Structure formats: C-alpha cells, structure tokens
C-alpha cells in the first residue's frame, strides 16, 4: 500500500474552517439560512477531508517505524528552539480527528436551537473545530500548545454567550481552568525543551512529539536525571511530567480539576457543550495517552499506583455525585467525570487491552455525551426545565423520544452492543492482565498492599463505578419516562424530523462502535497502540 509521507491535506483540513469563519463573518447577520448552511457545509467539508485523509493513510505501517507518522507538512518555525510547523497524523490522532469532525458537524446541525447571534455561534464553532483539529494534527509541542490554547477562546465565547442564567460564570470557570492548563502546558514544554537541549539524545533540543515519544528517545528523556549529569535535570523532567498531567487532566475534567465541568454542561447550550466539552475530552485524553505517559514512561510507571488511586476515586466520586443530582444535565456532567476516571485508568495501566479500552472510552463517551445532551435539549425545549423530580410519564407522551433517548442512557450504562461496553470490558481485562501477569511498578505501594492487589482494587472500583452509573441511569429513566404523565405536559409535540435524524445518526454511531469496535477503531489503530504501549510499558 502506498504511504503518503508528505501531503498538504492536513493543512487544508485545519485551514478550511478558518477560511470558512472569515467568510461567514463577512456575511450579513440576517442571512440566517445562508450562514447556517454555510457552516454546515464547511464542517461537512472538514469531515470529507478527514475521510479523504483516512483513505490516503496507510493503516498498516509497522509500529515504531517512521511510516507511523504520515501526511506530514513540516516547515521550520522558530529555529532557536527547533520548533516547526509540523502537522502529521498517526492512526490514533487521525481517528480522533475523524471523531472531532463528526462532532463538529453534529454540533452545527443542532445549532438551529440557538435563536440569536447565530452568526457568532457558527463562527465560533468553526474556529473551535479548526483549532481542535489543528491540535490533534500537531506533531510539534509548541504548535500543539498554540492550537490547544487557541481552542479555549471560541469555547469560552460559545459557553458564555448562549445558555442558562449561570453561563457567564461557567464560561469564566472554563476559561480559567483552560488557561491554567495551557500555562502548565507551556511551562512543561519549556521544561522539555530545556531537558532535551541538555540531554545527549537531543543536542540541539527538540519539541517533536514523535521523537520524544519514540522508544529510545523516551527512555533517555525518562532517565534524564541519571544520564545527563546536569544538576536539577531530574527535577525538571518530573516537573514537566506533573505539569503535563495537570494540564491534560484539567482538560479532561478529572475530579479534583473538574470544577468547570458541571457548570459548563449545566448552563451552556447543547451545541456549545457538544463541541467544547467533547473536544476537551478528546484533547485531554489524547494528551494523556499520546503525550504524557509515553513521553515519561518511567515517571508514569513510578506513580502508577498513586495515579490509579486518583482514577479510581474519580470514577466513584463522579458516579456517586451523579446519583444525588436532580438535573438531567448535571447527571450527564457527573457521569462524564466518572468516565474521565476510566480514561485516566486505561491510559496509565500500560497494558494494550486497557489502552484500547481508553481509546474506545473516548469514542464512546463522545457519542454518549452527544446523545444525552441531545435528549436533555429535546426535553428542555418542550418542558422548559430539566428537573427530574418534575418529570415523569414521558414514555406515554413522547414514545418516539423514549425509544431514541433510552439508547443514550443504555450507552451510559455500558450496555453490551453499544459503544461503551467494549471500552469497559477491555479496560477490565487490561487491569487484570496487568495485575496478574504484568510488569508491575517496582516502586513501593502505599497501604501495605502489593501492587497487584492495588490493581485488583482498581478493577473493583471500576466495576463499582459501573454499577453506580447503571443504577443512576435506571433511576433517571424512571424519573423521566415512568410514572403517571402530568397534565401540564399533555400538549407536547412529537419529535421533529431533524431531531429524529440527529438521534438516528448518534444511535447508529453508538451501535457501530459497540458491535464492530475492532473493525472501526481497534484494528486501524492497532499499530499505533502497540507502539505507544511498547514505550509506556517498558520503562528503563
């Protein structure tokens, strides 16, 4: 199969929404239909380009080879620090780009629920999609920083301009946490640049992600303190690791750094949340799985138990908090917190099955999040509220809505056949594999338990989280759909064709990821996962 090592297709992919945004800005604000169709066309074009890139991509490139990174656009940018405008994708990032483009298109399609300042909304959506894709396609850390930081601003405006009464505070929290994460990322990049400049491996320094996460380079970077002889180099590397972890965990919304997430999901409008929260979820998980742990495998392994405890607590914390909510959006938000814990756990275990599970969690969570958000949006447009205690009997009043939205709840419960079940299953298998026959961390484990016993505890926490989430979703279904129907809701109109269409697209995606995850996700990214796992699981 031909490998397209170099191509400008990614530049086109990143540039298209920017150009589209400029063109939309030039249109008069009263041309509603033109603006909406234009934005949808641009985002559909993005998806088409991403699919074309997937067609050009050689998915069978051997792990660890230079062919892993394809469709490159590599230009010098800042020579002093050896920074490049380097766009390229491996199988993992290309898959995530496809996901983001799909989510962007769906967010634009659902954008009709916004009835004022829609031009600004669509411009922001395009900018956000472009910057997210740019970050995922970046190979240079500084370029990654640029795009990921730029993604905060359209997200901030999207969250702050449309939504409920508390949207501005929510946007402020999002902005503050996002900027804090970005500053941490910048500091980490500076530290990495400094480290690489002083290491034997990179005499001129480098910010190239592919080099830094390659097996040899990563080992040398991980063992910097021991090999370089530079005072404080070990401390700087450790600082870079923790800063990266902070940055991406804040993006992901792992409990402890999650204070922005419930407010954002609750207060902002559905299209804004879809792309902002969904995009941040993808970016945070990508940062953990592709950058943080592969770049610092020894530090990752050394702190595996501590991070695992954090992830396990996150799973249980999110699931328990969700159980006490009476707002459908808040249930969704805390469910997402719990899922962030699963992603963190899957990424740090280092077993291929768990890593595959983490990737499937990203895809499944995105689809499920969109389904839950769209359900809450559809309901809110009719009932004017989302208070679960004031709902009930909707199955009789809106049978179509019941049929569609229940799939979202079942997805969230990790029901087999739907998108999150393979993720949960593989994560559990991965944890047990690591516990029983893995290279467990040599570092002393806290609490007097062996590392294998800690891993079993993580698996139990994951299972307990799944039970709590399932119970919560059942209770939510009960509060929305069962019981007597209230007279004040008898006038509700059925679903519109657009609402049904969006539900059908999302349900099809959930089924596809649940039934053929290997064909759609795991087989294509297999080589990339193997290469990352090889690096992460074998620290020096």
């Amino acid at each position, binding site marked *: 199969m031909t490998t397209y090592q*170099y191509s*400008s297709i990614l*530049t086109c992919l990143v*540039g298209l929404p*920017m150009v589209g*945004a*400029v063109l939309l*800005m030039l249109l008069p604000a009263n041309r509603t239909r033109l603006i909406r169709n234009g934005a949808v066309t641009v985002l559909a074009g993005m998806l088409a380009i991403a699919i074309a890139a997937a067609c050009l991509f050689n998915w069978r490139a051997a792990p660890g080879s*230079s062919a892993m990174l394809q469709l*490159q*656009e*590599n*230009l010098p940018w800042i020579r002093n620090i050896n920074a490049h*405008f380097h766009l390229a994708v491996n199988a993992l990032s290309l898959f995530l780009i496809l996901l983001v483009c799909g989510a962007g298109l769906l967010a634009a399609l659902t954008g009709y629920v916004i009835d004022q300042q829609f031009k600004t909304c669509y411009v922001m959506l395009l900018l956000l999609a472009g910057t997210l894709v*740019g970050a995922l396609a970046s190979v240079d850390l500084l370029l990654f920083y640029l795009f990921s930081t*730029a993604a905060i601003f359209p997200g901030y405006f999207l969250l702050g301009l449309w939504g409920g009464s508390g949207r501005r505070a929510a946007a402020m929290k999002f902005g503050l946490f996002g900027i804090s994460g970005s500053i941490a990322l910048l500091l980490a990049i500076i530290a990495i640049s400094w480290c690489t400049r002083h290491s034997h491996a990179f005499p001129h320094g480098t910010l190239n992600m592919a080099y830094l996460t390659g097996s040899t380079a990563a080992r040398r970077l991980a063992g910097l303190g021991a090999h370089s002889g530079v005072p404080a180099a070990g401390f700087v590397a450790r600082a870079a690791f923790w800063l990266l972890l902070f940055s991406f965990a804040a993006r992901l919304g792992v409990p402890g750094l999650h*204070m922005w997430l*419930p407010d954002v999901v609750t207060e902002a409008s559905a299209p804004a949340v879809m792309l902002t929260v969904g995009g941040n979820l993808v970016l945070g998980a990508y940062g953990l799985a592709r950058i943080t742990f592969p770049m610092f495998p020894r530090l990752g392994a050394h702190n595996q138990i501590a991070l695992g405890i954090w992830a396990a607590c996150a799973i249980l*914390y999110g699931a*328990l*908090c969700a159980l*006490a909510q009476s707002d459908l959006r808040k249930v969704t938000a805390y469910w997402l917190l719990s899922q962030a814990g699963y992603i963190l756990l899957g990424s740090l275990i280092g077993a291929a*099955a768990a890593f*595959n599970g983490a990737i499937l969690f990203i895809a499944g969570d995105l689809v499920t999040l969109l389904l839950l958000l769209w359900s809450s949006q559809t309901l809110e447009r009719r009932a004017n509220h989302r208070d679960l205690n004031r709902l009930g*009997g909707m199955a009789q009043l809106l*049978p179509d809505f019941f049929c569609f939205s229940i799939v979202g709840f*079942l997805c969230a*419960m990790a*029901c*087999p056949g739907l998108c999150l*079940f393979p993720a*949960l*299953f593989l994560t*559990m*298998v991965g944890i*047990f*594999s690591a516990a*029983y*026959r893995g*290279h467990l961390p040599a570092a002393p484990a806290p609490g007097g338990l062996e590392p294998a*016993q800690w891993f*079993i505890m993580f*698996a139990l926490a994951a*299972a*307990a989280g*799944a*039970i*709590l989430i399932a*119970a919560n979703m059942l209770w939510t*279904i*009960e509060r929305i759909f*069962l*019981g007597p129907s209230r007279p004040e809701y008898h006038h509700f109109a059925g679903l519109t064709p657009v609402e049904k269409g969006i539900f059908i697209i999302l349900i099809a995606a959930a089924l596809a990821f649940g*039934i*053929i995850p*290997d064909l759609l996700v*795991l*087989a294509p990214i297999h080589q990339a996962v*193997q290469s990352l796992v*090889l690096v992460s699981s074998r620290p020096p």
Partner: protein
Amino acid sequence: MPHSDILLSLAALLPLLACLLTLLRRSKTPIVAAYTSIGASLMSLTLTLLAIARRLGRGGMAGAIHQRLGLFCWLPLPGGYPPVPHQGLTFGLSVDSLSLAFFLLVLLLHLLSGVYSLSLLRQREINSAYFAGTNLFTFSVLAMLISANIPQLYAFLVLAGIGAFCAGFAAWRPDDRAAPRRLLAGAIVADALFLIGMGILLAHGPVGILTVRPRAGELIVPASVVPAVGNHAAAYIFHFSGPPGFLGLGWMDWVGICLLAGAMARAAQFPFHCWPMDFLPMPSPANALIGGALIAVSGPFMLARLFPLLNLNIRLVAAICGATTLTIAALVALVQTDIKRLVAWLLIAWTSLSFLLLGAGAYRVGVLESILACLAAATLFLVVGSVLGAVGGQRDIRLMGGLWAKLPVTAGAALLITMSATGMPALGGPPALQTGLTYLEHYASAIGGYGRLLFWAPVLVGYLLPLAMCRWWWLVFGGRPRSGLPAGVSESPVRTLPILLLTLGLLTAQQPWIGLTRLLARPAPVAPRAAIFPPLTGTAAGLVLAHLRWAWLVVMALIVAIYFVDLRYADRIRRFPGLNLIHRWLNHDMFFSDLYTASLGRPVRLLAQGFAFLDKWIVGWALLTGALILRLGALICAAWERRILEFSTGGRNPQRVGWGVFRSAAPGAQVWRSLLLLLLLIVLLVFITVLLAPRGWSYPVRP
C-alpha cells in the same frame, strides 16, 4: 457456513426483524404487530425444525451436534505483557443439542404466548410496544442460546433483560415506577461481577478459554463432563482453584463466583431472588414468556454453559444457593394469596431445583428440570391470565373459587400440571425428581455434615410445593365462588389452545418415548465421580423416594381437609401466637426487599448525598474563596494602578489614558476585534508559513 446454521441464524433474526417492523409501524393498530410477531415466530419455528431435520439427516443429533462458526472479530484481546500478536474474540455461532433444545422451547413459548396475546388486544391491555419488546426479548434469548463465546452470551443476556423491560413497559403501574429499577438492579450487580470474572479469566488463560468450544480431546476432561456438557474447553480447571490470592481464595474460585453470579441473577437465585416479583405487573403472556425463557431457561443454560469453568467449590456454592432458594421459595409460596406471586414463587422453586441439581453435578437431570420448570411455569402464567380475565383482575385467591364450572379446560390443564408437579406417576412427574434426588443423596452423603441438608432440603420441598400447588388449585377452581363472578365468563380457543399445547408438552416431555427422558435413562458416568464420592448405598434414599412417590396423595388429602370448609381452619391455624408472626414474615417474602433497600439502597443514596454536598459546597467554596482572594488582589492592584496613573497623568481621568482609547460605544465590538485579531494571526501563521516555505523539508534523520 453449513445450511443448518444459516437456517438457525435466520430463525434467530426473524423476531428482531418483526421488532423493527413493529417499531416502524408503531402508530398502526396493535393487531398488525401481533400477527407480525406470530408470523415471525412461526417462520422461525419452521426454520428451526428444518435445521434440526438437516442435522438428524447427517447422522443424528449426537453425530452432528457441535458447530462453531466465527463471523467477525468482535474484540481484540492482546493479553497483557508483552503484547501478543493480534487475536480476538470472535462474534459467531455455536450450536449443540443443549442450545437446540432450548432454542426450540423458547420459540414455542414465543409463538404460544403471542397467540394468547391476541385475546388481550380487545381489552387494550397491550399495545404495539409490547410486541416489539417481546420480539426483542426473544431475539436476544435465541441469540444467547447459540452464542459462540461467553462475552457474547453475556451481551445477549443483558439485551434480553432490556427486551423484558420494554415488553412490560406499558404495564408498569404509575404508582410504582420504581419496579423496573428493582427489576434490573440485581442484574446490574451480577453483570458487573460477571465482567470481573471474565477479566480475571482472560488475565490467566488464552482468549479461547471464553469460547464455547464443544470439541473434546485437546484437554484432559473429566469423563463425567464429556457426555453431558457441550462445552468443555476449559474443563481442565475442574479441580483447580489456583494459588490462594485475594482473601485466601484462588483465582479460579473468584472466577467461578463472579460468573456464577451472572447465572444466578437470571435464574432468580438467592440472593438475587427478589426481582421476579417486579415483573408481575406485566400481562400474563409476557409473564409466561419472560418467566419461562429468562428465569427457567437462560439462568440454567448459562450455568450449563459455564459448567466446565466452575470447579467443585463453586459448584457447591451453586448447589447451596439453589437449595437455599428452593427452601425460601417453597416456604413463601405456601402462604401467598396473590395468584401471580404464588406462580412466580413456584417458578423460582422449580428453577432452583434445577440449579441445585446442576451444582451437584447432575447435569442432565438439571437441564431436564429446567425444561419442565419452563413449561410448567409458562402454562401456569397463562392459566393465571385466563383466571384474572374471568374474575376481573382480582388477584387474591381467597376471593376466588368455583371457577371449575366457568373455565373447565383451563382448570383441567391446571389440575394436570399440579398433579404432574406433585409427582403423580401416570403423568410422568417422578423421573426427573427421583433421579435428581438420587444424585443429591449421593452428593450430600459425600460432603457429609451439614452438606446432607442439600438432600433433605429438596425432600422437604417435595412436600411443601405440592401443598402450595394443591392449595392454589383448590382455592381458585374448587369449591364455590367466594365472591361474585362477572357475568358471561367463558373460555376462548385463543386462550385455551396455547394452554393445552403447553400442558401437552409438559406431560409428554417426561414420557419415556421422548428423547429428553431417554437422556435420563442413560447410565450415569460414575467412573470419575467414584473417586470423589462414595457409591450410592444408602437405604434412606430409597425410603424417601418411595414416600415421595405417593406424597401427592397425602398432600391432596391434607389440602382437602384444610380447605374444603372455605379456609376456616387455615385461618385459625394462622391466628396461633407465633404462627401469625411467621405467616407475616413469609407473606412479605421474608422481608428480603426491605433488607436490601435498607442495607444497600439507602446507604448508597446517603453516600451520594454526602459526595454531592462535598462537591457543591466544599469544592465550590474552595473555588469561590480562591476567586475572592484573586479578586481582592486585583482590586488592590487596580487601586495602586489608579494612583500611579493619576500620578503620571497629573490628575487626569485615567479612563482616557492608555487602553481607554480603544473603547467603543458599540456593545460586543471589543469581542469582535479580539476575535478578528486572533483569527488573522492564526490564518497568517498557517498559510503564509506554508506558502513561503520550501516543499518537502523535513527533520534530518537521526540514528
């Protein structure tokens, strides 16, 4: 792909097709949905019979019994360190005699309950969604029966639960909307345990350990398992617990416990035995289908499929749980006055007998017992539907009576089932029970000590269940009506035909000329068991069996003695001091539901409230405090800045100085300006760099 497998796949898919068609035409009349469902099940049944005929034509069921087929890779499982080459869990089809027998049984139930449902259409008790749900349920159960591996089996079993939920959806009482949650709560816990079990198993064994691989030979398999089990890929762990690990149990013990929980939840075994009471508000045909296919078939089938993965310790656990459930169910059934609850407890009791037998190693008897339980319970639920239709929905059997005259065919069928279940020899009742008790006596004596209870519990129940069943029949059909019956009560062929066919199936299934009983007639493979258990020598067993054979006569006499005077003696007995407390305890299902709510539900809710409080107030306040400190700092800086500006501008208004010149009167202009600037920067950065730079430049290759 063999033709018979294609036929079976189509047979399983047809109910799904019917479900989809029903959903697409949801707004149309339910009668179309009903006939679509019946047509699909008829076609499925025909295809299944054709598939069986093809297999028989290829040398009989025993010769061509096992087929395994992989359709596509469902999940890749690179097992641990170092990552092994790409291998996966295949989504496919595996058929043996066990799955075929259950397949046929479930299809028969679906067809007959669908025909029975036609009678409910006029009363508007069911709608199109009901048929969609039952079709989804049947598809899931059928697909589970022919699953190629345990995760696939598990997936379809969960889907079957959802189908059951949807089938009864319209039937949940508005005032008890928590019923579905209670219905599925136990299954969720069991499913999570099942996931853990599969995870541990995959961590230790190859992927194939989860595959339903019926071919013998590659592993050393206990001979007792070979003829009975269609699945012995991992039977080498028969005696193996693994080194002591977590909490002193070997990993194989943990695997067994976790996997067993999944089967126990479906079969409603202790401690997952409360949920069947919450599916009773569904219409009676749904009770028959779900009770028969999920509780009586799926649970024991799952245990049978997992049989080779369970070592002796875990089989003992299964047997103990079965015996416990059997005792609980028989005792509770004895005092029930709600007709549906009574039948539900009978179903649980029969299924637990099957579980007990399977756990004790009496594989074939256990399977046969589950088939009988399925047929008997489904028939009784349909009978209950007819009775409820006749008495206007009144479910208290103390207010019934005298229905024999109004529903003669139904009463006759119920009497035949009661006689058969109580052990009347001419009706084919004893073989399963007697052979099972022989096994149990053997097993219990080998264990010794309290293990003997595993034998005496079913013996006790052998008396209690007939008592409960005869009481039920007598109060419903016998004597005189204790309350007024609605006028015009009669039987319709749509209702009586399924009842009669199921009764006929139940009675003939136990006859010697049917293949099912011939399974029992085979000599039991005792060679490897002899090493574990001593041979059966006790005379006590023969004594008990001899008594049990005629127990029904004693029981009938007892029933008539107590109830022929309209419950007066029964009421007096119940009023005895102490007995009334026991009666109350049993009548409330031993308060297990309340116990679970108090010990699990409430503490979790409390914990959740605590965490929500923590998140809202403590975390929120911490954030707010941080923000306030920052704000204070900003105010101090701003005040300081103002002083500096005033000082530097000589006292002029600082708003007109510096950034003030950029202020605009138009709202939002600043936002646009910032955005435009950002956009221009990014566009310039991306495009100008790309256009000006030389093509094809890349990093120098480093060694």
